[in-house]
């Protein structure tokens, strides 16, 4: 800690609380000194500070001490009065304005860094003009009536030797009428030390006259009290002083001129004069006065305590003249203070303090307390006492209201200085804060001083520093001190730069930006304003103000700003997508968005694999290409590279973004080093030239660049124009992207530089492709004829086309180029001859070798499409082709097409097949159809079995159960069919006729008779059926005993709007692998005559019968046959219990016997029990015989079959009762 005397407060006190010398001089004296550009007082001022005057002093005690530092304050008599408040205020304002002009040119530079501020030495943190301001501020309180240290100690009377009657002049000068009023009205003691000085101007006065006058003076006023000052020794008046002593006191005039007529000898003379004046006259005088007063007071005070009031009563009206005891004590204290006898000063102050307090003379009391505090401080006594006194004085002044505020300010300044000297910076800051007052300029200065205190606290309180600077700045601005406002905000920016306190940052940058604009520094203004553009968290009104002011300032600059890192709009770098085509080309935007892995897995089969399965063609080319390009992407000259980028407006108000464009560089191959920044060989597409960014909206912008030459293309950044005035630039590389090099990846979520660098290769053919009329929404089963159109827009032909489709179940390529004459769907009907197509075994469709696409030609290829299953289907097509006649590093390309379909459910069919109970090889089919569509009705056209094996016939006309012919949404329908196995079975020869092919199809409605049936054995239905078969495979696929059905329907015309936009013409529903359901593995029938005429008179009737048993299952079956010679029950046995829903086959065409009254017994006369082995799916016959004794109707159901399955996975066994079989035996007439 610094010694109090050497602290800044110590220096201040030495300067401010020091003896006052009143100067009275004649106009001629002033004239003499004005030759030097100085007044008389000003001339002497630099020589009034004595750093080591070394005068022995004895005040109250017997102790002698030596005074070292000493200062005199010289005032013209006219200045010895309380300063005019208004004038003082103007002077203070002038100080600030002047300082503002000085700092103005520094404002352009970058704001200081916080580390710089902290590393500054203590003395440099606050600008130097603050000391000056504080001094001026303290001076506004000079010559107050409650203090005595401004009372003149001595009077210096100065007369020029050129004056007429100089001695008389001296007398005139000290004429009471011309003395300051303070001396006249009793505040100050007019009886002061007088000293007489005769000025001799060496330039124009004669020495004789001067010496005559001097001797006259000496005889009049006494030898000791008179001095001679010879001055202006330089005749030419052009002396230049090194380190001009007046410069620091007078700044307005050019400093060099000051004292131009004063030679070094003159200065020495002045110095000696002042030294003598101080040490010989003033100090002894004060010493004497202190001793006198001390004596007088101690005498008066004895026993007279509280009796010394001059005036009683009302507080603060109390007027203490210099002669009152209180004033005398105060004078004693102040004199002692000025003579550095702080003990005596303190004791005097203490003495008077209580008196003033009792008198309620608060101003006097506060003044004394203030002096006590200072005395405690400067004498390095109790720090606590010092602060207590200061605080007491301060708050007492404040209690006086406005009247005391000026005093409180001075007290606060001293107090703050005291705290600073004691390293109590935080408290000092609060002291400054307390003296802010209401006057804004004053407050600004105090706040700024407070802010510097926060820097000096340990640890530094930078947040407080920033806050107080901002407060100060606001006050400066209110007083139009813009450069000071900028200065403080500039410093505050360093505090807030790194924070995320958005309101604060916006406030600081916005205001400093505006102020910079006010002082005409538009570029700096714009720089600051740019930082508030991303003000999404502000209210809408604020955002509007921010933007409005920003654009105003930009307009004022009158130039086009190109701003790197403009924050409006926000560029979402994670949205950056680069879409380009190398050997992989895309038919549409939809296909670009598909994951690369899907394409890769699809293309595995058709892309020629090189070294290994993993290698891509780029690696092969590594020999051809310089290594550094190996990892860059490849694109083709003339083909555009697209960049998708999302712009986001963070504001609540809309902003307009125009002229969005990419910044690209193209380095041509031939000359590797020249970077073609303004490339003529590069066309940069500007999409969305007038973009209106809505509030709080994101907007995806697609930008394209098309290189037209080979070389290296780099996409550097993006440029846009904000509201038609500011051009924003964003460089992609500047964003630290994740260093994830996914080479070969098309989409790069983030931006490694590699992703934005392209190797441009020579122009190549590029195939364009599309599938015409592919609906987006259709019904399941919808069968369509589509055309794939491929266009080769380049010059050179392509060859070796191959195609792979992700869903062969849905799409079947035709096998020759489109025949435009064929009508759909008529071409699918019978009678239209078509080439039979063998179904494609490979999933890759190779176009015929002779198909090559010449330049500028297009190819139309038929595609059969069938919506196989309901749901959302993504169809992927990839077409491989090779370039002909092109020597390029790229040998082939692929065209990728992607379509999304929504397949709605339509008709759902289920089939149940049960064996016919009475007929071998015949089966009953129940078809259940449900219309699952939401809005459309369907017509059922045709049901077909697939293959030649099964013949199909209707059991009932559907017309009868569904007269409307169309199945409404949600409606269900059951129809019954019979199917017949046409296959040659076992050893039997009777079922040898194979059904003609027409029998495999059945029309559902008779009305449709004129319509032809669809041919299901030809392409494409057959092909689709094959796919369906493989897709519908079930677990027990081994079973051969299955039936496949194809139901063909079409949408009924209705007035209601259809569920799909494009009404299908034909729908095919494939149901494969329908198994025959039955409870036992056998089917059998009794074969024999139905009616027999027999003459029973001759013999009993023997009838030969045959039981045909068929093993319908896959295992070897052993069957034992037993006859029963009695009827177990009158009721006919029910062949099976597995029947559902009450429908049952009733054998047709058998006339039931009319009466059952006579049922004479018959006997099984042939073999009554036998056991046979039946091979799987084969038939065997058992001959039977019955004997009948009388005519009648006989039911031959009295037998049972016991079967046992073996060889099958699950061996099983069971017993079946015989079916009723009626035989009529008649007696011939």
């Amino acid at each position, binding site marked *: 800690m610094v010694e109090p005397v050497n602290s800044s407060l110590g220096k201040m006190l030495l300067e401010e609380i020091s003896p006052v010398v009143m100067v009275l001089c004649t106009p001629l004296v002033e004239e003499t000194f004005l030759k030097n550009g100085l007044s008389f007082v000003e001339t002497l001022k630099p020589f009034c500070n004595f750093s080591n005057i070394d005068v022995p002093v004895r005040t109250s005690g017997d102790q002698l001490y030596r005074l070292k530092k000493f200062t005199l304050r010289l005032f013209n008599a006219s200045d010895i009065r309380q300063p005019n408040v208004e004038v003082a205020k103007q002077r203070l304002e002038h100080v600030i304005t002047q300082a503002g002009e000085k700092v103005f040119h520094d404002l352009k530079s970058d704001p200081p860094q916080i580390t710089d501020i902290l590393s500054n030495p203590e003395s440099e943190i606050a600008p130097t003009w603050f000391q000056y301001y504080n001094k001026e501020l303290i001076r506004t309180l000079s010559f107050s009536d409650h203090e005595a240290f401004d009372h003149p100690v001595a009077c210096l009377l100065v007369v020029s030797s050129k004056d007429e009657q100089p001695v008389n002049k001296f007398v005139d000068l000290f004429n009471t009428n011309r003395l300051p009023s303070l001396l006249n009205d009793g505040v100050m003691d007019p009886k002061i030390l007088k000293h007489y000085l005769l000025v001799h101007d060496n330039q124009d006065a004669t020495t004789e006259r001067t010496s005559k006058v001097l001797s006259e003076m000496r005889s009049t006023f006494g030898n000791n009290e008179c001095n001679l000052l010879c001055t202006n020794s330089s005749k030419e008046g052009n002396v230049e002083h090194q380190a001009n002593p007046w410069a620091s006191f007078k700044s307005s005039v050019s400093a060099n001129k000051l004292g131009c007529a004063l030679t070094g000898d003159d200065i020495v003379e002045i110095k000696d004069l002042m030294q003598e004046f101080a040490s010989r006259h003033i100090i002894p005088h004060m010493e004497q006065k202190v001793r006198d007063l001390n004596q007088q007071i101690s005498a008066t005070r004895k026993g007279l305590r509280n009796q010394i009031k001059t005036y009683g009563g009302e507080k603060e009206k109390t007027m203490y003249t210099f002669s009152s005891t209180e004033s005398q004590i105060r004078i004693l204290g102040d004199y002692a203070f000025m003579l550095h006898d702080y003990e005596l000063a303190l004791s005097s102050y203490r003495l008077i303090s209580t008196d003033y307090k009792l008198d309620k003379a608060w101003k006097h009391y506060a003044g004394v307390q203030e002096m006590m505090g200072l005395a405690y401080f400067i004498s390095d006594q109790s720090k606590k006492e010092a602060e207590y006194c200061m605080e007491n004085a301060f708050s007492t002044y404040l209690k006086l209201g406005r009247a005391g505020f000026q005093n409180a300010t001075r007290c606060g300044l001293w107090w703050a200085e005291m705290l600073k000297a004691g390293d109590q910076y935080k408290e000092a800051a609060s002291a400054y804060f307390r003296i802010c007052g209401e006057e804004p300029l004053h407050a600004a200065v105090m706040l700024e001083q407070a802010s510097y205190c*926060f820097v000096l606290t340990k640890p530094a309180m*930078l*947040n407080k520093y920033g806050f*107080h600077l901002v407060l100060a700045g606001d006050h400066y601005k209110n007083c139009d001190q813009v450069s000071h406002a900028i200065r403080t905000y500039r410093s505050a920016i360093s505090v807030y730069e790194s*924070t995320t306190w*958005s309101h604060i940052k916006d406030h600081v940058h916005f205001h400093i930006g505006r102020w910079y604009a006010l002082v005409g520094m538009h570029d700096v203004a714009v720089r600051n304003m740019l930082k508030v553009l991303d003000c999404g968290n502000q209210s809408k009104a604020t955002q509007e103000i921010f933007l409005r002011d920003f654009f105003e300032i930009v307009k004022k600059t009158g130039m086009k700003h190109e701003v790197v890192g403009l924050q409006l709009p926000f560029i979402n770098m994670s949205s950056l997508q680069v879409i380009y085509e190398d050997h992989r080309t895309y038919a549409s935007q939809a296909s670009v968005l598909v994951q690369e892995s899907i394409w890769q897995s699809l293309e595995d089969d058709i892309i020629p694999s090189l070294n290994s399965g993993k290698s891509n063609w780029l690696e092969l080319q590594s020999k051809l290409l310089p290594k550094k390009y190996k990892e860059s992407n490849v694109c083709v000259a003339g083909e555009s590279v697209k960049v998708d980028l999302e712009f986001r407006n963070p504001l609540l108000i809309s902003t307009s973004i125009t002229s969005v464009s990419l910044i690209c560089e193209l380095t041509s191959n031939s000359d590797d080093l020249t970077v073609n920044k303004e490339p003529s060989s590069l066309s940069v597409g500007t999409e969305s030239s007038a973009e209106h960014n809505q509030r709080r909206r994101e907007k995806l912008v697609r930008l394209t660049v098309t290189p037209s030459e080979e070389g290296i293309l780099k996409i550097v950044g993006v440029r846009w124009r904000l509201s038609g005035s500011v051009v924003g630039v964003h460089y992609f590389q500047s964003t630290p992207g994740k260093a994830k090099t996914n080479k070969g990846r098309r989409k790069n979520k983030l931006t490694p530089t590699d992703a934005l660098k392209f190797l441009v290769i020579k122009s190549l053919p590029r195939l364009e492709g599309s599938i015409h009329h592919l609906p987006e929404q259709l019904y399941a089963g919808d069968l369509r004829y589509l055309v794939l159109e491929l266009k080769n827009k380049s010059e050179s032909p392509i060859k070796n086309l191959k195609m792979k489709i992700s869903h062969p179940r849905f799409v079947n390529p035709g096998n020759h180029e489109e025949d435009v004459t064929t009508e759909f769907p008529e071409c699918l009907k019978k009678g239209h001859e078509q080439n039979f197509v063998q179904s494609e075994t490979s999933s890759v469709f190779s176009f015929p070798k002779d198909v090559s696409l010449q330049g500028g030609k297009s190819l139309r290829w038929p595609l059969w499409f069938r919506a196989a299953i309901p749901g959302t289907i993504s169809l992927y097509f990839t077409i491989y082709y090779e370039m002909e006649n092109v020597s390029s590093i790229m040998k082939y390309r692929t065209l990728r097409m992607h379509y999304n379909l929504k397949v709605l459910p339509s008709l759902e069919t289920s089939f149940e097949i049960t064996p016919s109970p009475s007929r071998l090889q015949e089966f009953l089919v129940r078809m259940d159809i449900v219309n699952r569509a939401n809005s459309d009705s369907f017509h059922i056209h045709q049901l077909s079995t697939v293959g030649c094996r099964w013949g199909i016939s209707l059991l009932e006309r559907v017309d009868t159960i569904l007269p409307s012919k169309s199945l409404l949404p949600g409606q269900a329908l059951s129809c019954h069919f019979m199917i017949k196995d046409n296959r040659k079975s076992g050893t039997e020869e009777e079922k040898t006729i194979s059904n003609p092919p027409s029998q495999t199809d059945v029309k559902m409605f008779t009305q449709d008779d004129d319509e032809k049936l669809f041919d299901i054995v030809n392409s494409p239905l057959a092909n689709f059926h094959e796919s369906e078969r493989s897709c519908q495979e079930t677990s027990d696929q081994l079973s051969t005993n299955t039936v496949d059905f194809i139901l063909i329907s079409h949408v009924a015309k209705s007035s209601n709007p259809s569920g799909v936009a494009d009404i299908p013409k034909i729908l095919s529903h494939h149901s494969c692998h329908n198994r025959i359901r039955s409870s036992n593995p056998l089917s059998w029938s009794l074969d024999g005559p139905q009616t027999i005429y027999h003459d029973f008179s001759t013999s009993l009737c023997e009838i030969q019968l045959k039981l045909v048993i068929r093993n319908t299952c896959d295992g070897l079956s052993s069957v034992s046959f037993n006859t029963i010679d009695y009827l177990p029950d009158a009721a006919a046995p029910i062949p099976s219990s597995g029947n559902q829903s009450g429908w049952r086959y009733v054998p047709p065409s058998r006339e039931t016997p009319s009466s059952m009254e006579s049922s004479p017994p018959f006997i099984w006369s042939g073999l009554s029990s036998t056991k046979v082995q039946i091979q799987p799916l084969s038939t065997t016959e058992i001959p039977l015989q019955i004997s009948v004794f009388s005519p009648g109707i006989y039911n031959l159901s009295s037998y049972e079959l016991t079967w046992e399955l073996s060889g099958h996975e699950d061996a099983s066994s069971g017993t079946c009762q015989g079916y009723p079989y009626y035989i009529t035996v008649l007696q011939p007439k």
Partner: protein
Amino acid sequence: MANTACFMIVARNDIPIYEAEVGSAAKREDAAQLHQFILHAALDVVQDLAWTTSAMFLKSVDRFNDLVVSVYILLNPLYLPGSRITSTHFDTKVRALARKYL
């Protein structure tokens, strides 16, 4: 009584992660930024004080004119440094409590 208040949660390194202007007084346009300034400045005081006391509630640690700053020092071990509190539910709760007690 009409009053103005601001509730903020500040994470390590003085990063504000939640702020709510509460209180019944009519909203002044610059209230939010004034509050931010005051609270930001108060952090200096809090940082000094936090190490000298074991109390978690620091009542009236700082003031600016008639605005008083009180601080709770809390620790959330589950907090991911730097993330903001964006829960609307939390926001609603804070404002409801403010209405109840202010």
